[in-house]
């Protein structure tokens, strides 16, 4: 399966086309094809996970000494039995060379404190798409632990969302297209995940951008929805500028190849120049900021809640937004070297991540729409993942991505279930006390919230704890504090959310009831995963780490820190304190009333949060407005006066030049020559004409005279 992993995105791609052409005629409107395809993809992904697990770990990689440039001291052995790699990488040769270099030494790297454990080597499969100028553009798949984990997650969430949507989107005006778009979107994410070359990854990235536009704007008849879709697309597109620039820089810096493994290798072994690497990594990170909704390009994600809830669950909880995190994780060699993450202190990735954690969490407090709360929560958790990558806790970041997919997906689907019952998303106005009406939804939502908050022994606890541990141990104490504050705020706003939705008295007007099985069964499945997924990396077991450990990880010499009890206790205390505070304020009813009415500062703070830090005003008003107005007018003026002026001027000048040439050269010189030839011929002819007198005797005279002369000549000379 690992060699043929391309089948997985192929399945969903085929299902997209099938739904598009045949969906309308089928009894369930195309959903059967979608569910079948994604289900099969999930099964194959699970098979891939098992196969990956069974794969013997034979590759030994020594850490590269990153202190000096240009000296590669890595050495390793080839995987013996499995010969899946059809295309040898360039660093196979580098490895062979390095063996000679390192043979004299004792074989211990300078950076690594760990001994080099053998890892499973990635399964690569490439074919050359086209080549130009000596450069081969390849497409192919590269499967390693990160890939199979994400395949598993994405296909599972996608399958559950499909099942959920059959009931949630029932009777929708564009039911079939919705499923087609879901299939296409899944294809895009799977393509990104399995690709071995950056160019191919870009395909998947952009495909997801397109599908998110289609899906967010699913009910485009209402203007706010299409506006939100536009905003999402354009904001991520702004980030994509950086991505494209970064991709091109990486291409050239890595020696004209898009191959991800080659790029990482080149970055880690110091083959790229320092400035080039920094600029390229920063550009790539801009793309990540856009796609993964980091500050300052996070504004699209809350607005994207205008789309259907299954879309929010799939795209904005589990799949698309983590594409940026995945990209950083994949190209970690580049970022590790460019921003010198090993050194500790601060670096741009961690800073952006940290800021995102805090400001998003703050915004989650003032939302009345349940989906908006979850959206800001997602932004905050994405900040956690990016921050983790920034502090060098690679495995922690991936692990958090993994667990977050489950409990955030669960929370979104739960919100969907609630809205299905009360036909609204407003917590303040239409919800309250729903635990009596919707027990299954309530229980699963609670599990999800506790997992998000990070309560032992649910999934979120383990992953968040690993992040904080990594921050502390790698020399990023500041970000450990940021993480703790974020954990506190997370627990607090989730308590508020849960309280407003499920507790208290019912403030709505309808008759809420529990949702049917297509909705509740996915909730239960996700709840199970939310509970158990964290144990995958539990101390002693550490299966997740072992599965995802890859070449880059070892080459860079990233450290993995096992569970330590003290930081775990500290974070648990913080979380429980937050829960207690929340319980006090909401459950016990001790929420101070009228604070904003009394205090100026409180009012200002509330307004700041309610207006989302005025960032939207900045973007649409200042940036877009100035471009639409003065800049556009200036460009128009330049176009009309300057550019058109030049063009018209050239035209007028050419016309005048042509006229002059016509008058003086063509008429006088050329025509003069032609006419002159005519006149000359005429004159000469006139002269010759006088010989012809018409008189025969004259002709005779000429004849005889000529004959006489000729005869004379004959006689004299012959």
């Amino acid at each position, binding site marked *: 399966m690992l060699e043929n992993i391309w089948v997985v995105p192929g399945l969903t791609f085929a299902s997209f086309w099938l739904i598009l052409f045949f969906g309308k005629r089928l009894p369930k409107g195309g959903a059967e094809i979608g569910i079948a395809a994604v289900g099969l993809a999930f099964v194959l992904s699970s098979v891939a996970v098992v196969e990956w697990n069974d794969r013997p770990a034979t590759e030994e990689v020594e850490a590269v000494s990153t202190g000096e440039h240009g000296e590669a001291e890595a050495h390793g052995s080839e995987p013996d039995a499995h010969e899946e790699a059809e295309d040898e990488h360039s660093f196979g040769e580098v490895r062979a060379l390095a063996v000679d270099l390192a043979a004299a030494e004792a074989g211990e790297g300078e950076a690594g404190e760990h001994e080099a454990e053998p890892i499973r080597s990635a399964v690569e499969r490439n074919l050359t798409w086209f080549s130009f100028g000596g450069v081969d553009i390849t497409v192919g798949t590269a499967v390693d632990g990160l890939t199979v984990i994400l395949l598993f997650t994405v296909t599972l969430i996608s399958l559950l969302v499909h099942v959920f949507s059959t009931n949630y989107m029932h009777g929708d005006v564009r039911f079939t297209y919705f499923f087609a778009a879901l299939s296409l979107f899944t294809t895009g994410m799977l393509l990104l995940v399995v690709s071995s070359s950056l160019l191919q990854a870009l395909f998947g990235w952009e495909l997801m951008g397109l599908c998110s536009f289609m899906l967010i704007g699913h009910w485009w008849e209402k203007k706010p929805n299409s506006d939100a879709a536009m905003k999402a697309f354009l904001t991520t597109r702004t980030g994509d500028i950086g991505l494209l620039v970064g991709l091109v820089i990486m291409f050239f810096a890595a020696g004209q190849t898009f191959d991800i493994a080659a790029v990482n290798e080149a970055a880690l072994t110091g083959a790229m120049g320092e400035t080039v690497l920094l600029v390229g990594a920063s550009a790539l990170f801009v793309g990540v900021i856009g796609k993964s909704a980091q500050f300052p390009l996070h504004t699209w994600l809350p607005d994207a809640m205008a789309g259907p809830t299954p879309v929010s669950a799939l795209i904005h909880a589990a799949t698309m937004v983590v594409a940026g995190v995945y990209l950083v994780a994949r190209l970690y060699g580049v970022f590790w070297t460019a921003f010198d993450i090993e050194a500790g202190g601060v670096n741009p990735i961690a800073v952006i991540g940290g800021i995102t954690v805090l400001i998003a969490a703050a915004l989650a407090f003032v939302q009345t729409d349940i989906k908006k709360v979850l959206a800001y929560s997602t932004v905050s958790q994405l900040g956690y993942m990016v921050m983790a990558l920034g502090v060098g806790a690679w495995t922690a970041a991936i692990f958090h991505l993994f667990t977050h997919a489950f409990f955030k997906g669960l929370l979104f689907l739960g919100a969907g279930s609630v809205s299905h019952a009360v036909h609204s998303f407003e917590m303040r106005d239409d919800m309250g006390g729903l635990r009596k009406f919707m027990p299954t939804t309530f229980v699963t939502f609670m599990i999800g919230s506790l997992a998000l908050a990070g309560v032992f022994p649910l999934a979120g606890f383990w992953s968040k704890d690993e992040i904080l541990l990594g921050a502390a141990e790698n020399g990023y104490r500041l970000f450990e504090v940021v993480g703790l504050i974020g954990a506190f705020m997370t627990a607090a706003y989730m308590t508020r959310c849960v309280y407003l939705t499920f507790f208290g008295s019912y403030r709505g007007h309808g008759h809420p009831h529990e949702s049917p099985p297509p909705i509740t069964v996915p909730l239960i499945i996700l709840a199970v995963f939310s509970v158990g997924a964290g144990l995958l990396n539990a101390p002693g077991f550490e299966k997740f780490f072992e599965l995802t450990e890859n070449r880059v990880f070892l080459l860079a010499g990233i450290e993995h820190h096992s569970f330590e009890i003290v930081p775990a206790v500290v974070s648990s205390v913080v979380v429980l304190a937050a829960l207690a505070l929340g319980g006090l304020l909401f459950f016990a009813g001790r929420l101070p009333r009228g604070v904003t009415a009394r205090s100026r500062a409180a009012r200002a703070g509330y307004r700041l949060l309610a207006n989302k830090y005025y960032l939207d005003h900045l973007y649409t008003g200042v940036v877009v407005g100035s471009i639409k107005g003065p800049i556009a007018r200036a460009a128009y003026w330049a176009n009309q006066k300057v550019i058109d002026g030049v063009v018209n001027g050239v035209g007028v000048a050419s016309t005048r030049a042509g006229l002059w040439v016509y008058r003086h050269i063509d008429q006088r010189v050329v025509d003069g020559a032609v006419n002159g030839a005519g006149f000359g011929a005429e004159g000469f002819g006139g002269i010759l004409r006088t010989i*012809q*007198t*018409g*008189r*025969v*005797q004259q002709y*005779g*005279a000429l004849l*005889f005279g000529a004959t006489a002369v000729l005869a004379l000549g004959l006689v004299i000379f012959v």
Partner: protein
Amino acid sequence: MLVNQFLILGAVLFCIGVYGVLARRNGVLVLMSIELILNAVNINLIALGALQGPEAAVTGQVFSLFVITIAAAEVGVGLAIVLLIYRNRTTVDLDEVDLMKG
């Protein structure tokens, strides 16, 4: 007698005839000059025939007879043409027959 006597006499008559053809204005006079030329030719023929023995002499005579005949025919037609010119233009001045003037 030298054969050259006759031949040179023939040449003299010929050249006088040529002068007459080129220099005379009247068409009839031109024809007369042509007769002079033809006679010169005849003298040549007979003299050269006589130079070379009996058969040649006879051949010379035969040919000169032919020349006389042809001269007669030519004069007939030539005068007819001159008559026509006279009828059309009331003149036989050859200088005035220059319709082909370029």
